[in-house]
């Protein structure tokens, strides 16, 4: 196996992995404020992609305008989901909340199918599709977009959590919601905020990935699954672990497809994940004491 192939596998894996990482990031933020895995996270990613396609293709909006609009629309959906489905049942066991998010994901997927049909759609890459050749391996310009925006999102989150009052309040909620509410933090508002932020991250991910991965109403299932795996791999609750987990998962799959067998690439990735969990029961960068369901 020559080095340009290996490089190609790595690049492919990292691009693929960033899709997982972005989904995982959204999982983490909601998990931190609610302790719940939001099964509808993949649907947020799908919504971002489908909305931008709808805006560009049907309404004829230009891409630079469609991106913030689609992100805003998804953020609004996230807020609605929290207000209508999550807030009314606060205080219920988290398994109930998880089932509700499953219901929400089915509902969103169904509505997307009704409104936008069952077809797959694609967006033109933001800056052409002439690949950049590096040491014999091809990199798509869109991959740079994905990489840059992921880094911007991560940095933005980091700044949000460490500099703004809202961010610190959210962090406080994740450590101890009861204590946070005692010092006057509106926990409900923080949960709402977390849904909006993770919907936003999901949507942005969905939009910038559509030129690479295409999009359709049922794109969310697979992304949600891989995103969850990435979260666990990195250690639940750690945003940087989630991003890293996504990249690792992507590279594992790509190397698996390249060197072992494309049919078993997912199985290989999951076997590595299982072995890792057995050795390190709370993920690569997780805290030692795992929360209970």
């Amino acid at each position, binding site marked *: 196996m020559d080095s340009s192939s290996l490089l190609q596998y790595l690049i492919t894996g990292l691009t693929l992995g960033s899709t997982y990482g972005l989904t995982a990031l959204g999982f983490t933020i909601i998990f931190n404020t609610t302790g719940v*895995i939001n099964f509808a996270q993949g649907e947020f990613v799908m919504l971002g992609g489908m909305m931008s396609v709808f805006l560009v293709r049907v309404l004829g909006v230009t891409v630079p305008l469609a991106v913030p609009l689609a992100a805003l629309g998804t953020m609004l959906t996230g807020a609605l989901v929290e207000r209508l*489905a999550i807030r009314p*049942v606060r205080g219920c066991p988290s398994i109930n909340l998880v089932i509700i998010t499953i*219901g929400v994901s089915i509902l969103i997927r*169904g509505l997307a199918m009704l409104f936008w049909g069952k077809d797959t759609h694609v967006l033109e890459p933001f800056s052409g599709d002439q690949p950049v050749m590096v040491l014999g391996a091809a990199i798509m310009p869109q991959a740079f977009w994905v990489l840059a925006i992921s880094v911007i999102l991560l940095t933005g989150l980091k700044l949000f959590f460490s500099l703004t009052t809202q961010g610190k309040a959210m962090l406080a909620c994740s450590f101890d919601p009861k204590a946070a509410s005692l010092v006057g933090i509106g926990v409900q508002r923080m949960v709402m905020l977390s849904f909006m932020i993770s919907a936003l991250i999901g949507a942005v991910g969905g939009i910038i990935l559509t030129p690479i991965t295409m999009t359709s109403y049922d794109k969310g299932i697979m992304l949600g699954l891989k995103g969850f795996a990435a979260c666990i791999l990195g250690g639940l609750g750690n945003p940087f672990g989630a991003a890293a987990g996504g990249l690792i998962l992507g590279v594992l799959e790509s190397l698996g497809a390249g060197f072992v067998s494309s049919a078993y690439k997912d199985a290989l990735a999951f076997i590595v994940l299982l072995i890792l969990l057995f050795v390190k029961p709370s993920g690569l960068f997780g805290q030692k004491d795992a929360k209970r*369901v």
Partner: protein
Amino acid sequence: MQNGYNVAYRRDMFWLAGFFTLLMLAPFCMPNNYYLTILILCGLHAMHAVGLCLLVGHAGQISLGHAGFYGLAAYTSAYLSTTLGLAVGLSMVAGVVLTVLISLLVGLPSLKLKGHYLAMATLGFGIILSILFTETVDITGGPSGFVGIPRLSILGQELTTDIAVYRAVAVVLCLMVWLSFNVLHSRIGRALRALHTSEKAAQAMGVDIARFKLFVFVLSAAFSSISGVLYAHYLTFIAPVSFGFMFSVELIVMVVLGGMVSVPGSIVGAFFVTILPEFLRAFENVEVVLFGAILILCMMFLPDGLAGGWNRLWSRFRRAVHE
């Protein structure tokens, strides 16, 4: 007072007797085989739900891998009986035994994990299995399915009609419910509930938590595998799509919808989730949306599931009668 414990057991047995009678009488109200097919599938799904009620509801250990056990047993029995020509009964037993052994191997390391990590481990295992079902085309027939599986037979007697299969499924389901009630009303059931609340305290009271977690994991896997072999030989066709991770999620939905800790509730949950789409069929494309909405509304207004809702309704009715 002295027999208070037996009273609870007797009440459950009474319920079981009623349920069994209902299952036996149901076919007489069924105008044709279509309804019988639905009921058979309901029964098969309820078997998983009963096992998972013990595992998830009582012991508090989540599993998203039971669709894998379901498929493993189905494929094993299908392969042995169809490809290798073994007797159906023997293949079914082999399918269950193999699955139980595998679940033992999976459970041993996985059950040390907690919460979402356990969910991920079992989920990962389920996905690995479903990839195997899809990719080992020579053994499983691959994505387009395993064809020509012989029909169910018991002691060499082939069950040619749906009604016979239905009765077999009903009897097996009731046996499982009986076993589950026995477990729940014994020291094992107590130990499971104890370790659900506090693993520390359970250990301090001498409960070998690893062993009991494994016991209930394997028991529920056994229920799923029995459902799997019955499914394979009833339908005489199996395909990997039936055993994907979405089915595992659906199983958990059944249990939670049923009220987590109630065995009858889980059965009702399984029937509900299986029958609902058939009723919604008339709505065509809107069906999926309605299913999602009903699921959300159920969880919002019946936080303790269908069983909890039923109990509340019943006690309100009793109060009304008393007044």
